[in-house]
């Protein structure tokens, strides 16, 4: 059985064109869903497939859709979160670049299931080529009657628009994304209320990751059971792992959930580069707590990694070798979050900057004995006290680095 689902047709030349895509069996799922299934049936199928969000938090997509109230007079919206800002993550870019119609297909089915007639694709500002490709794909879809009024004669209307972000990491957070989409400053909103009830322009809104939506056509086409077989019982389907760092073959690898980290690094990505030795792995994008070389026998799924104190996140595996100084890693992490903190809530605004200042001082060789303790204390104070998950995303990797590589960090202190 071919394990690849999303990336199965990546090798096909011109897949981004609708005719090529249709030649590979594209848009059949839309027809299946719109013509033969009720929205409730689609929703039910997705729920049964245990499709967990691929953006990072891993919230079951079907459940999320179910939260959208159906009996309110307000319009409902779908936002595709294509603001892929997490360092180390590049899977969505591949998906959208190679197979934009798959995303559109998923968008149409999701909109149909929730009763949405307007969808926005919020693309990261730096992904200009991707945005252009998506726009081309949307235009093709409109021409072919997959978008617009009365899709495929079923009476279902859907408009899709691409929105380019302005380059803020925080806009990958769903409420900040909504604010940005509304034309405001990308500041996260207070939750509750959740976007499912009060979202874009105060209307119920579904926000899904590109990869999540790309899975939808396969679930509709092949059924939830087929999908579940490709993963774990509570964690259906495959996952695209983006491997970067000191490996021989960095790139994206679509593998079933639950694949061991060691397998990913050493079998699929070709192992460490010549002469390099594994030191640590960040398993789920920069905001995931770091794993040491001893911990790479973990199966890569949400629950196992959470059990090990890390998280799957966006499944971006960053491999770090022994020659890389852990202080540089810490410096990169601290600088990134200090730079990307939106400045709205106190612990994140000042805490990340404070940590960054300490780390910079450490890197200059002007560290003091209690600096590591201070970093740990500050990160602990940020954790769980911020308005949006960015605070946690900053605190967790810093905490894990300080805990797991404390001895190495202490080496950078004077008189140590």
């Amino acid at each position, binding site marked *: 059985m071919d394990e690849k689902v999303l990336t199965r047709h990546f090798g096909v030349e011109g897949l981004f064109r609708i005719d090529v895509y249709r030649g590979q069996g594209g848009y059949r799922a839309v027809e299946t869903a719109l013509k033969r299934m009720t929205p409730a049936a689609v929703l039910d199928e997705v729920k049964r497939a245990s499709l967990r969000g691929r953006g990072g938090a891993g919230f079951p997509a079907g459940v999320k859709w179910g939260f959208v109230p159906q009996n309110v007079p307000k319009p409902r919206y779908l936002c595709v979160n294509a603001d892929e800002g997490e360092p180390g993550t590049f899977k969505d870019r591949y998906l959208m670049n190679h197979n934009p119609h798959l995303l559109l297909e998923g968008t149409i089915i999701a909109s149909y299931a929730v009763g949405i007639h307007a969808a926005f694709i919020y693309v990261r500002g730096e992904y200009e080529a991707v945005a252009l490709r998506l726009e081309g794909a949307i235009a093709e879809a409109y021409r072919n009657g997959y978008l617009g009024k009365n899709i495929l004669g079923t009476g279902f209307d859907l408009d899709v628009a691409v929105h380019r972000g302005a380059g*803020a990491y925080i806009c990958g957070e769903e409420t900040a994304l909504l604010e940005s989409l509304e034309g405001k400053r990308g*500041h996260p909103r207070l939750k509750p209320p959740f976007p499912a009830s009060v979202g874009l322009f105060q209307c119920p809104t579904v926000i899904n990751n590109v990869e999540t939506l790309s899975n939808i056509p396969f679930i509709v086409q092949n059924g939830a059971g087929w999908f579940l077989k490709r993963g774990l019982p509570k964690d259906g389907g495959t996952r695209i792992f983006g491997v970067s760092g000191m490996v021989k073959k960095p790139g994206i690898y679509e593998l079933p959930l639950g694949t061991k980290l060691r397998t990913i690094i050493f079998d699929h990505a070709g192992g460490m580069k010549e002469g390099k030795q594994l030191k640590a792995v960040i398993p789920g994008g920069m905001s995931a707590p770091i794993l040491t070389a001893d911990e790479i026998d973990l199966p890569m799924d949400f629950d196992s990694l959470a059990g090990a104190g890390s998280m799957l996140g966006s499944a971006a595996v960053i491999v770090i070798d022994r020659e890389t100084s852990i202080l540089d890693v810490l410096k990169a992490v601290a600088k990134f979050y200090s*730079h990307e903190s939106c400045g709205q*809530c*106190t612990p994140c*605004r*000042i805490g990340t900057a404070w940590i960054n200042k*300490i780390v910079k001082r450490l890197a200059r060789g002007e560290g003091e004995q209690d600096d590591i303790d201070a970093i740990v204390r500050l990160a602990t104070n940020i954790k*769980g*006290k911020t308005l949006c998950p960015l605070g946690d995303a900053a605190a967790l990797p810093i905490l894990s680095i300080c805990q797991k590589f404390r001895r190495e960090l202490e080496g950078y202190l004077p008189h140590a």
Partner: protein
Amino acid sequence: MPKIFIDDRAVEVAEGLTLLQAAESVGIPIPHFCYHPAFPPEGSCRMCLVEIEGLPKLELACSTVVKEGLRVRTMSPKVVEARKSVLEFLLAEHPLDCPICDKAGECKLQDYFEEYGLFKSQFKEAKEKREKKFKLGRNLILDRERCILCTRCVRFLNEITKTEDAGILNRGIHSEVGIFESEFIDNNYSGNLAQICPVGAITDTDFRFKTRVWFLESRESICPLCSRGCNIIMDSHAGYPRTLPTRRVYRVRARQNLDVNFHWICDYGRYGYAYLDEGREDRLVWKKGDRETRLSWDKAAQILSEKIRSLVHLRKNSRIGIVLHTNLTNEELFLADRVFRKGLGVEKLFLADPPPGKGDEFLLTADRTANRRGLQEVGLPVQAPDLKALSGLDLLLIFGHYLAAGTSPSDLKNALEKVETKALFASHKSGLDGLVDFVIPVPVIAEKNGSLTNIDGRVQPFVAGLSFAGDGIAEWRALLDLARELKVEHKYFSRLASPEAIYRALRKEIPFFK
């Protein structure tokens, strides 16, 4: 009425309240910066985190709505630790210039810092340098180093004035409150920004560096500068031993009254307090030709009542005229009615008021007197002061110094010269001083007791916030004394010894005031 448990105390609170409001309603304060009752919760300061039983993380008290059976802890070690950490973060980038900060003494950050005792700084890095003297508005100066980005000011401008002048610029540690270049905040409510700022980031040039708040005595009063009747707090100061102050009131603040002015007052009322000390009448004088004699009020009352009595005796009631104004309290207008119209049969009642200004849609009204509605409700039949009508009189009691407005001084002089006896009860000096026989200083609203009826018909009692130092007399007392000297309805007036007693009589007689 959901029943919740705050710190193991079972309390019943109103539906829909947030935890913070619920706790405050039962006297448990929860520290906060960004929350303000006038705005929806913002949740950015993270100071109001509380522990809710059954939830893994601390929750915001300002945005969590009460639910039946919620168990909240506001002072558990975890909560206190969280508050300390938030305070530590805030103080890390907040300058320690409390000594020169006008907010010191009423600063929330300072108060919480004292309460949670973070006396040992662990911040070794350099603080961010920011603009310390940014001209934010006509009367506002922004110190960006002190700003804790609670965004109350931004939200005020977005939600109350809807002018949307300010916003947050930049991000992360570089976030700062900013406005459009070369266009500072200039609206009639900008003074409120300095009041709602929880720290000393926005200061008011009117109050900036004038004194320290702990020297001030706060007295409640009602703003008399328009007919809205905003509730205010006057902060007065006795001055330093060696440098006497030029004014008694150093600042006027809004006092919360959700039925009248919410949490706000307009700049016209906020900065218009100079009238309290400037140009005040301070000497009770009797002018005979060129000679001016200082008198006591008792003596003046005897002379005046003698004149009135002789006119009444000669049945020349129609040759007595009274000029009123609507900065008088309900009680005084009622007494004027009882003593002169109903008691002595004086029919010539005039009304001389300051000219109306421009109002706005929010608080400021066009009518620049405090009690026009009160005059209507008391039911005094008044006419406009027609110079011809005035000149035909023998005795004229003028209340207020507003008569001079709207008439040319020479016409007024000609008209008043024909009147035999003229007494002026005025709080401020004016052109009328030279035209009358008696000048009797009277207190302003802030210096006397009574009640006012605002434009919406809301009767608001007030007490004197400042002492009245001149040798004059409050109008209500003057009217009562005249009634006593004239022996008008002695039994009735002898019971009315205070504005409260007069108001009780007023309630009995006029249904509106019930």
